């Protein structure tokens, strides 16, 4: 099962992961990563811009790549867009597999790609001013691990 979503409104991770898990009877395990908007450095808000024709298609291709690369029963990729506040979930990846390491590695893989190789533009509001955020050097290094 492949489930890829762009979400304009706040979401509850459990309400996505529960049905995703139940959709895979016989699974050995589900690994889930939920990223939230960090509340550091006086960040008042975070905004994610996307470009519909590329962003969703890119996430779908990423899900396909994970399904092809790891021994999965299914993958769920959900990403918020729009304006968010600290503590709100921004991204969720769940992978269901017969064996744990396939699920864990698929989540690691998908998160690295979402972080610095997906069509999102992120900016933070601090002191009433918006600032564009670039991927960290570590994010590029993390991504490079998979190009082998």
């Amino acid at each position, binding site marked *: 099962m492949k489930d890829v979503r762009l979400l304009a409104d706040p979401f509850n991770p459990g309400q996505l992961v529960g049905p995703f898990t139940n959709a895979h009877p016989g699974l050995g395990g589900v690994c889930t990563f939920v*990223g939230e908007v960090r509340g550091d450095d006086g960040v008042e808000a975070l905004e*994610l*811009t996307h*470009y519909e*024709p*590329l962003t969703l*298609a890119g996430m779908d291709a990423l899900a396909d790549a994970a399904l092809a690369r790891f021994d999965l029963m299914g993958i769920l990729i959900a*990403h918020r867009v729009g304006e968010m506040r600290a503590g709100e979930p*921004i*991204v969720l990846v769940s992978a269901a597999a017969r064996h744990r390491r396939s699920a864990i590695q698929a989540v690691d893989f998908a*998160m690295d790609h*979402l*972080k*610095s*190789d*997906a*069509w*999102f*533009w*992120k*900016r933070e509001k601090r002191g009433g001013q918006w600032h*564009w*955020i*670039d*991927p960290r050097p570590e*994010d590029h290094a993390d991504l490079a691990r998979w190009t082998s």
Partner: protein
Amino acid sequence: MGVKLVFLGRLADLTGVAEREVSAPLDWSTLLDALQGELGGWLASDKVKLAVNGTLLADKMALQANDGDEVALLPPVSGG
């Protein structure tokens, strides 16, 4: 109807708009002429990519857009 330009991320800050209509046909040199004042070095930078109707151009200098096409100007991404 012309060509619709879509400015993403910080490029929209520089132009002050998210979208703009320009006359067709549009190629790389006419795009440069139209936007270099506002976008400066960004447009020519390797970091900015172009997509025509949702398809990324491998070589943005090969841009050829006609009436009704949508051209997206894509600065470096950041997500997650």
